[in-house]
């Protein structure tokens, strides 16, 4: 890809990743589509902040994750119950976002601060390296490790209660 791809080129190349990220976090097809549009608009406006040697995918995933977590925190979107319809992207479990691990991470997010939420999604769902996640969320690697360890410990302590509540809200 050349150094300054058009918005359309970015969309063709990465739109499906952005959409799946939004749908995973927001749990609704409509909300995910609106959010995808907003993510690309934000990306276009923030293009000047993209570093030439960085990854467009990492950058867009970071914007998408941040945007959706903000929507959820602000209560502008209520997490939906999932998607229906003949959408080839819907097969549960085919993608990282459909795995049981990813669902567990998503349902636990509300217990944590914004930075830890983003770090957990990038690390446990995207399977980025700790160095990549640390750079994406603005933490040192040791601090990131501490946060992720705290995430898992809290999951161990409170996971059952949180997941039961999430399942009840979805039903």
């Amino acid at each position: 890809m050349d150094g300054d791809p058009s918005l359309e080129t970015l969309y063709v190349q990465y739109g499906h990743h952005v959409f799946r990220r939004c749908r995973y976090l927001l749990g609704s097809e409509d909300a995910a589509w609106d959010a995808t549009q907003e993510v690309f608009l934000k990306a276009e406006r923030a293009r000047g902040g993209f570093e030439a040697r960085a990854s467009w995918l990492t950058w867009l995933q970071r914007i998408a994750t941040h945007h959706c977590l903000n929507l959820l925190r602000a209560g502008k979107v209520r997490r939906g119950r999932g998607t229906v319809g003949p959408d080839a992207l819907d097969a549960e479990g085919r993608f990282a976002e459909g795995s049981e691990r990813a669902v567990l991470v998503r349902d636990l997010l509300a217990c944590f601060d914004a930075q830890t939420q983003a770090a957990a999604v990038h690390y446990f769902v995207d399977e980025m390296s700790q160095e990549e996640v640390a750079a994406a969320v603005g933490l040192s690697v040791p601090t990131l490790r501490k946060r992720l360890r705290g995430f898992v410990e809290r999951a161990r302590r409170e996971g059952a209660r949180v997941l039961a509540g999430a399942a009840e809200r979805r039903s």
Partner: protein
Amino acid sequence: MDDEIGALEARLDEASPAHPGRHLLARFEAGELDDPSALAAHLDVCARCAGLVAEMGRDRQAFLALRPPATLQRPTPAPSLAARLRLWLVGPTLVAAGLAWWLVPREAPAPAGVRLKGAVDLGFHVRSDGEVRRGEPGDVVHPGDQVQLRYSTPQHRYLVVVSLDARGAVTPFYDDAGRSLAIEPGTARLLDGSVELDDALGPERVVACFSAAPLETARVVEAGRRALTAAGGDPRAVGPLDLPCDQAGFVLEKRGR
């Protein structure tokens, strides 16, 4: 749940993972890596990772078929200095005009069912034999295929969709307990769920009625029957339904497998 938390712990303690992370695979699939040779060598011998990469490619195709680049909103350019200056100059005129608007008598807001101006559109995607494709008017489809509808409207808040088939049947596709479905205005918005096509063969017209207030589905169905009769029973020849709504639609050609 213990297994899943165990998996999170294992990921934390993973010193050198057996497989590259999904993010790296996605970067590879997107052609982003400066030197993809090491990862390509891994994919040659790892069916799991090769399968994930292939799936990402199929995922992109399916996504773009459902939501092509034309559906992406473009940013509105900020007004130039000259344009801002013009706005500043005409501002007082607009304020005066606004005051005048309040003072002169005007028509009441559109009552229930009244037609609103504005372009409406109805499109669709078809899932047939496990493949999803973007549909075009006149497409050949088969009984059992699933159709998901996509609408565009700048302002309407309610929608009923019916189908008129070659047997003379008018069937509601989308409504809400006998009345219009509440919708959000927007562009290329997918309706939740899908419709499985029945075994009536021949041409079938799908009509969407967009309105400012809910319509009774029975009224839409009745208007559909009248229009179908007036067209000699041929869905392809059906004109607009006699209803206070804006309409959009398409014709499908349903054939046996």
